[in-house]
């Protein structure tokens, strides 16, 4: 069975609603700049909050450039390197209703930590076809990488200690837009 989950309490707020929105606007501009426009781009969000962030980035690009980019949903449970170490897996499904062949795929997630999730996501995407390139967009990069993976677009670099946790709260799931650092309650 899974180990008991420690309870966390909020320590500091690092992004409020306006700052989070500004970070996404900047990333949207950077994506367009780096790729010389929006042609042949596609978003793939990692469940759950990566998908929401991908949809927001697609909306920003639609505002800036007028292009409507497809947004897919990726569930990486079947590709995890710790499958079986955390109790029975919960599968929620991958839904990428477009071909990624020869596209530049922008992979979106909320927090980049050890890099293991992104490693699994890269395998999962490549099983679906051969994209021209994969780029990584992350709202919070909290460091402590265990694999040679780096993001192409970062909302905020946030030095944290390993015992802390970063919570990205989004309106669609949590009722408000903000990012907080949490620490274990016993501390």
């Amino acid at each position, binding site marked *: *069975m*899974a180990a008991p989950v420690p309870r966390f309490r909020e320590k500091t707020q690092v992004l409020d609603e306006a700052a989070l929105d500004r970070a996404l606007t900047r990333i949207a501009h950077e994506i367009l700049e780096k790729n010389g426009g929006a042609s042949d781009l596609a978003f793939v969000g990692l469940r759950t909050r990566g998908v929401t962030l991908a949809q927001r980035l697609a909306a920003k690009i639609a505002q800036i450039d007028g292009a409507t980019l497809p947004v897919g949903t990726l*569930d990486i*449970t*079947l*590709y995890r390197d710790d*499958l*079986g*170490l955390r*109790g*029975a*897996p*919960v*599968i*929620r*499904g*991958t*839904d990428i209703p477009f071909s990624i062949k020869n596209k530049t795929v922008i992979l979106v997630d909320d927090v980049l930590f050890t890099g293991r999730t992104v490693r699994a996501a890269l*395998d*999962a995407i490549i*099983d*679906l*076809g051969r994209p021209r390139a994969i780029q990584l967009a992350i709202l919070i990069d909290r460091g402590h990488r265990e694999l040679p993976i780096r993001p192409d677009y970062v909302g905020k670099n946030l030095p944290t200690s390993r015992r802390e946790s970063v919570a990205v709260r989004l309106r669609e799931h949590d009722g408000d837009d903000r990012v907080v650092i949490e620490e274990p309650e016993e501390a």
Partner: protein
Amino acid sequence: MRWTRKHLLTMRELDASEIVLLVDTAASLQEIATREIKKVPALRGKTIVNLFYEPSTRTRTSFEIAGKWLSADVINFSASGSSTTKGESFIDTAKNIAAMSPDVVIVRHSSAGAAELLARTLPCSIVNAGDGAHEHPTQALLDLLTIREKKAHFDGLHVAIVGDIAHSRVARSDIHGMRKLGVTVTVAGPPTLIPPFVQELGVKVSYRLEDAIRDVDVIMLLRLQHERMTNGLIPSLREYSRYWGLTLDKLAKHARPDVLIMHPGPVNRGIELAPEVADGPYSVILDQVAKGVAVRMGVLLLLAGSKADAP
């Protein structure tokens, strides 16, 4: 909701939330069948043994495909061509296979309780792929997935299960699964093929096909097991097919226009089901087979993809 069981033996022991978890997991995995590369690494390094003591086309093949799409190593054992023909007992064969450290053993056997016996004896996970006239849980799960995809929900649905209820493990597993999800079930067939006290499973009973199929959302036909006829349970195949065979004519006269026709296979064309009905627009028989792979992927993933030690 997380899966905590080590084995899948019966639908009877599952609660509604476990059944929904299995159906949801299978639904999410269906997408793999549409990929160009039909393989994910989830069960890499796991060994799955198909231990089949009865003939099977759909079940054995779909467990094998399911295991392979999840990257497990799948080994098929069938009783013919094995040491069983030299007189080795079921339990000895099973213990010998278990000594080769498989993670999951999928068993089909003509005796009710065979899967449970293995679950008590072997250290690995056991999946019941049909034990005598007892249960066939993965068939019930794929029936439920098919119904949910076609009808979008289970609320207020009414299913008629028609044919040889007494000898059918599919009927038993379907009845348990459907009743737990709130589906109304009517069983119908000649009195000799309806088990006594079947009402205690919470089903209605009908002895007339025309009544049983009126106003139901799904008609599930069962295979008439020819061998029963020699036991004097039905007078003749011709009489059975006249009274109990589902034809286009009976369907048009008595059933709803949006009814689904299901059958666990293999179909006796022209006996319980007219070919025009089996191949017709109401029929979802091949959808059932396709869903079977997804359901078996879900079951294997939940059993072998966790280290739960619960019973």
